[in-house]
């Protein structure tokens, strides 16, 4: 069976859930081979083996990690040439999509981004499903040239544990001078919120204009559910919440099991970022708010009274 390359997202060796999702998808197409770039491979190995990685390609060179995107694409291009994989799977983050973009040009391969489902098609092809136009359409596509390069949205598969050999191979890929043109000169880590990452979270609670800048009730409700906190563009533009938490077309696209929109009217900009959520709840004072057209459950009311009452009830139910 052909290898399927999976570029692993991790934080200093702590493997992100998205990587386990990709490993699960990779097994539908062939034998998963992980590409692990940066420090921490030893710490990650056990998890990768538990989720079916047959091979682990390790790359630790500073020539790769000190520069933006381009060296990582060169590493993957070298692997595409040597391993002739059935597909390359990368998580749909901004960086992941850029790596995939350069890899596609380098290898003359078709690229599909933001897949929400990936399945094996006829005769070794790969079929993907994407959402288009703010989630209003489902699109089936496939790659017709080269090696299918697919970026996959978080939460597109439930990780399934299957033992893999995780045979290690340390790669020494010479990085061209041209790929070392955009140097990372400073990195300021962001303070951790203690909440789940927005795109990975099973539950997201978002606040909008209706918070009037006070996100405390949104945060307390989110914490009662173990949820991530999101914000509408209006709230972010007003400076009420960080841009990293923005849900919508120009922020994060989320697809959680449950999405709660509090004080968010539901403009197209916002819907584009959350329309594929499995269950949607809205709390809004305005019964005419467009968000109510798409909810499974809605409360017409003031979030400052509804959310605290719900928070109390949820905390009580948890015991």
């Amino acid at each position, binding site marked *: 069976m052909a290898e399927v390359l999976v570029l692993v997202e991790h934080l200093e060796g702590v493997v992100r859930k998205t990587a386990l999702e990709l490993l699960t998808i990779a097994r539908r197409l062939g034998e998963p081979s992980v590409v692990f770039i940066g420090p921490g491979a030893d710490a990650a190995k056990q998890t990768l083996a538990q989720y079916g990685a047959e091979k682990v390609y390790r790359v630790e060179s500073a020539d790769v990690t000190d520069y933006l995107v381009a060296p990582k694409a060169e590493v993957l291009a070298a692997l595409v040439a040597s391993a002739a994989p059935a597909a390359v799977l990368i998580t749909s983050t901004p960086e992941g999509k850029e790596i995939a973009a350069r890899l596609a040009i380098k290898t003359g391969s078709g690229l599909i981004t933001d897949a929400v489902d990936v399945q094996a098609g006829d005769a070794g092809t790969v079929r993907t499903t994407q959402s288009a*136009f703010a989630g209003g*359409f489902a699109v089936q596509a496939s790659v017709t040239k080269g090696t299918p390069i697919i970026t996959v949205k978080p939460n597109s598969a439930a990780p399934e544990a299957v033992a893999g050999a995780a045979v290690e191979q340390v790669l020494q890929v010479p990085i061209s001078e041209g790929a070392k*043109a955009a140097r990372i000169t400073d*990195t*300021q880590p962001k303070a951790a919120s203690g909440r789940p990452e927005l795109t990975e979270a099973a539950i997201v609670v978002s606040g909008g204009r209706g918070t009037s800048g006070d996100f405390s009730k949104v945060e307390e409700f989110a914490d009662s559910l173990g949820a991530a906190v999101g914000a509408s563009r209006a709230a972010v533009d007003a400076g009420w919440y960080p841009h990293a938490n923005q849900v919508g077309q120009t922020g994060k696209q989320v697809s959680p099991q449950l999405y709660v929109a509090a004080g968010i009217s539901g403009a197209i900009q916002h819907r584009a970022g959350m329309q594929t959520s499995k269950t949607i709840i809205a709390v809004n004072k305005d019964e005419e708010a467009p968000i109510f057209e798409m909810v499974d*459950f809605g409360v017409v009311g003031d979030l400052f*009274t*509804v959310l605290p009452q719900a928070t*109390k009830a949820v905390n009580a139910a948890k015991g």
Partner: protein
Amino acid sequence: MGLACVPGALSVSCITAPALAAPMGAKMSRNLKTYFPMKGDEPAMNIVVCVKYVPDATSDPTFNESDNTTDRLGVDGLLSELDEYAVEAGLKLAESAGEESNVTVLTIGPDKAADAIKKSLQMGADAGVHVNDEAIHGSDAAATSLILAEAVKKIGNPDLILTGMASTDGVMGVVPAMLAERLGLPQVTLASELTVAGGTVTIRRDDDVASVTITASLPALVSVTDQINEPRYPSFKGIMAAKKKPVSTWSLADLGIDAGSVGLAGAWTTVESFAKRPPRAQGQIVTDEGDGGTKLAEFLSANKFV
């Protein structure tokens, strides 16, 4: 940058790139700076901003039934909102650099795409290039980046190529990286802050876990996010001036691109089918009468979220 062009040099002498293929007219506003040479202590910059004409998201965008491509003719369109940030960034850089600086806006698309150039010229760009050819219809991101790369070369190797972070229709966000790859330029993408000084571009790029500073030498490709600035509205003066600004229209043949390598036939991916998702059925709506939060919690319990 040319060797003669050091920061602080008289910018008049610093024309760092070959003259643009498009004639540079309509520079009345900048000519004023000639009389105030202390302004612009950076050498002149030739900037190309890549923009896209997209279906208006509020006008029900859809696909063509015949070939599964985005319908660009049957719906209203406009300059992609995210590209306005790139135009603004280009204008700001040109204004602070030497007075021979210029901003050329480049687009690919059918006749209507000229609207995207027009809006950019009204904002203050100096010239437009419109690549318009029937064979382009159905091009994927790889083909788009090929056409942009050849057009940038024909414009004449600018100091800086600016793009938005993604289009608002396809939303792939991959063309900037592809363009950098094809042109062999430093990829300096997703800038939330941008400075150019002494032939070096520096940006701040934010991701989930960190805020990263990236530097590269010019020439470079830079994409900007919607966090970088507040795009200006065209002024009345800008709208009037735009009418006199030069716009060149190029075909694929003008760029030496084989029509078979782009468009639907040249695409490296294919859309097999599309289906409109059924609108979500509206669920239960309750009005808060003092028990809205309790009912919300009951819904969560009933659906096993608690």
